[in-house]
């Protein structure tokens, strides 16, 4: 396999001015992240600060209704309420070891921005977060959280003023300030080595889930399911299982409103190969190669690209990618809340919705583990609005 590639996908399509910091980061991954000192410090932070291992919970009530076993890997119980913190604490620690004094990050809805601001505060780093101007208005409470954590939030006025433009702005910032700044990219996307780095830091999710499941049941789950926007919780969940071929891997994308022409974020299902934000992957794009706007009720799935390793797992047939509409995700959100007492993030509710659709279709002995990537408190406004519209 070519360096930095997953099959045909990945690579490093970045301006030459970004090559030195990308090579520096790659070197730091090899040298610093593999060291015993880094690993010990990181493991300690994950345990005592992030709150790992997160629980693996068997949903007894829902399992009864579904006629198979439903398990949740509870990333919503991690500090800041989502899996994002695994990545930001790891990258912030790496940045500190590299001698960087500042983190720059992009954020869509604000979850990765909050997680970056948190890790920066913890490790004494400055933090600048680029956020699309539209998102700054839509997600005002997350802007406030980031500011309380000491980060500077910079609204991005260019392009569609959403996540993809925030990534452009963060990359531009990094070009100019690379000497003292680390770009803390929030998903398993971007130029090499980011997809690898983010997978490395998120793969704790799947390692824990595999071990927890095995020690309680003595077997492997038949299916592992996770939502996919950029795909960091999914690649983190899948990675430990990839070599265990008896476990099916299922990624769930956002089909948006579900009609044929509407905007959605189902990149792997409906996209085509191309190059965006430094990597070759599947994209929502026009025939001319212009990037199209994406949409999802779940802000964290709203991205017109996807991590290159997912494109590869799909091409190989190792993972299957399906899609779920806004309204299916909303129903799953409500059902989990009422039957299990858990408010899941709308992103994670997509993964759950797919599994709920399998009710009565699987053998009773089947066990399905869903990555519950985040908590739903952040989505109450969206849910209220969606319910009002009916």
């Amino acid at each position, binding site marked *: 396999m070519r*360096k930095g590639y997953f099959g045909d996908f990945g*690579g*490093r*399509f*970045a*301006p*030459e*001015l970004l*090559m*030195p910091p990308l090579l520096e980061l790659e070197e730091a991954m090899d040298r610093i992240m593999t060291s015993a000192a880094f690993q010990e410090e990181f493991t300690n932070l994950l345990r005592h600060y992030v709150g790992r291992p997160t629980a693996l919970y068997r949903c007894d009530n829902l399992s009864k209704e579904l006629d198979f076993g439903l398990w949740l890997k509870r990333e919503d119980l991690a500090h800041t309420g989502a899996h994002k913190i695994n990545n930001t604490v790891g990258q912030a620690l790496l940045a500190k070891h590299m001698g960087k004094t500042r983190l720059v990050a992009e954020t869509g809805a604000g979850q990765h921005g909050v997680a970056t601001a948190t890790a920066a505060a913890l490790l004494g780093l400055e933090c600048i977060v680029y956020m699309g101007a539209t998102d700054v208005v839509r997600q005002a409470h997350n802007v406030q959280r980031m500011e309380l954590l000491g980060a500077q939030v910079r609204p991005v006025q*260019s*392009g569609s003023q959403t996540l*993809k*433009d925030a990534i*452009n702005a963060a*990359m*531009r910032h990094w*070009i*100019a300030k*690379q000497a003292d700044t680390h770009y803390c990219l929030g998903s398993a996307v971007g130029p090499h080595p980011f997809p690898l780095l983010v997978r490395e830091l998120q793969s704790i999710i799947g390692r824990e889930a595999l071990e927890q499941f095995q020690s309680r049941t003595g077997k492997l789950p038949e299916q592992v399911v996770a939502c996919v926007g950029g795909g960091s919780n999914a690649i983190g969940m899948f990675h430990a299982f990839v070599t265990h071929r008896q476990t099916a891997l299922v990624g769930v994308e956002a089909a948006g409103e579900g009609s044929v022409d509407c905007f959605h974020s189902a990149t792997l299902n409906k996209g085509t190969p*191309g*190059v*965006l*934000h*430094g990597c070759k992957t599947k*994209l929502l*794009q026009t*025939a*001319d*190669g*212009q*990037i199209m706007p994406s949409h999802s009720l779940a802000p964290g799935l709203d991205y017109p690209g996807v991590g290159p390793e997912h494109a590869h797992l799909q091409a190989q047939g190792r993972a299957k990618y399906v899609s779920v509409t806004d309204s299916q995700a909303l129903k799953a959100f409500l059902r989990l809340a009422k039957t299990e007492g858990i408010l899941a993030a709308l992103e994670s509710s997509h993964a759950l919705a797919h599994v709920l659709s399998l009710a009565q279709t699987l053998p009773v002995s089947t066990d399905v583990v869903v990555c519950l990537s985040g908590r739903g408190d952040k989505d109450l406004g969206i849910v209220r609005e969606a319910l009002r519209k009916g």
Partner: protein
Amino acid sequence: MTINTLTEKIHKALSLGRKALMPYLPAGYPDKDAFWRHIADLDHSGADIIEIGVPFSDPVADGTIVEQAALRCLEQGVNLQWILDELAMRRSSIRAGIVLMGYMNPFLQFGLERLAATASRIGVNGLIIADLPLEEALDIRKLFRECGIALISLVGLNTSAERLRLYARRSEGFVYFVSVMGVTGERDALPMELQNALRKAREIFSIPLALGFGLHSPAQLTKINDAVDGVVMGSSLIRHIQESGGIDGFLTPWTSKQAG
């Protein structure tokens, strides 16, 4: 047309006692008709190489002025096919060398082999892909070279001597030196370290060296005059068009002898 056409254009300008002038304009800016008038005017007023920007929705190496101009072009329906069709009709009347400058994805979706064949037939002399560094460019460089089109390399202040040498071994046409650690857009002052960096690049490359990003006035070259063979002006040209409605006078400060 050969792979050396761009090099020859630059040498010709130098032999006239001035820098090679390389204006950049996004295709279809400010509108589809005016664009080709501006290209003709630039050609008549002394441009040696004209860089036609191929607009992309996510131009990560560009500042606000170029990005906004590119988005405006996209809104008007500009795409690579339109650029090549229109250029094909006009190429014989343009004396300057022609370079297409853009980002990987629109080129990739058009089809690289189809692009190489079409561009070669039309008389495009070079291609600049802002998000295609050395390691990803190997096959593409070969493809275009075989069609007589130079894939222009971009290097900058943070490019090590080792990487400069790797680029030098593979590059043709000219090398595009990015003057600042940042994106396109006019700057009042160029960085202090530019002088040394250019000297280093000069020793390593045998092909001409063009400076771009941030340029708006020959005065900016005072300390680095000897190290530069050509100058690229993009954002300053867009601003000039915005302010005056045309390109009259834009190249004048650069065509006088003292700028060379």
